[in-house]
């Protein structure tokens, strides 16, 4: 395997793993569902796309030929990630009782973050 292709494969793998990890960190660190949904929907999809491109280059150089099947997974993921993110956001919106705060308003720094220790809100009918 020539040197240039090694650098390309390693670079694509590093970028892909970084963005996949970024999606996981966003899942844990961000406080609100509508902020959390952006991490996996964008970062993880880009990361998996980079890893799949690295796999295409790796198998191409290692002699087993170009396989467009991996490109199929990439295209499928890039098509379905926005759809599933949209559906999950609609599911979260349907569970809310009132409208979400307008994004033009600045967030309240003193506002309390609701978590599991708080008393549960009344059950929806």
């Amino acid at each position, binding site marked *: *395997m020539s040197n240039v292709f*090694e650098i390309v*494969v*390693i670079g694509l*793998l*590093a970028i*892909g*793993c*970084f963005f*996949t*990890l970024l*999606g*996981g*960190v966003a*899942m*844990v660190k961000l406080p609100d*569902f509508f902020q*959390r*949904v952006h*991490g*996996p929907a964008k970062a*993880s*999809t880009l*990361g*998996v796309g980079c*890893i*799949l491109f*690295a*796999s295409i280059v*790796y*198998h191409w150089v*290692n002699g*087993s030929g170009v*396989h467009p*099947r*991996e490109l*199929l*997974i990439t295209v*499928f*993921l890039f098509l*379905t*990630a926005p*759809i*599933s993110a949209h*559906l*999950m*956001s*609609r*599911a*979260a919106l*349907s*569970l809310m009782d009132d409208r979400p705060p307008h994004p033009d308003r600045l967030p309240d720094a003193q506002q309390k973050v*609701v*978590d*599991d220790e708080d008393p549960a809100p009344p059950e929806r009918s």
Partner: protein
Amino acid sequence: MTIIDITIIVGMHVVGIAMLLSLWRLLRGPTAPDRILALDTLYISAIAQLIMFGMLLDTEVYFEAALIIAMLGFVGTVVLSKYVIRRDIVE
């Protein structure tokens, strides 16, 4: 063991950490959409893990598995979200 193999092994560990983080959200997540989102992230990371495992073993049998996980995972996400929206799967 070439440098690419070492990179793949390190990358598999990194993606494994990402899977653990989304598993934490899946177990803890306050609302149902959080858990759906965690499952979605988990199967996307599983695709990455399978692809890198196939690169490490230099075989191509794992592409079909990754493709099936991608399709069934998307269907699962859509069905779970539809269930949360309408409280009913059969329409």
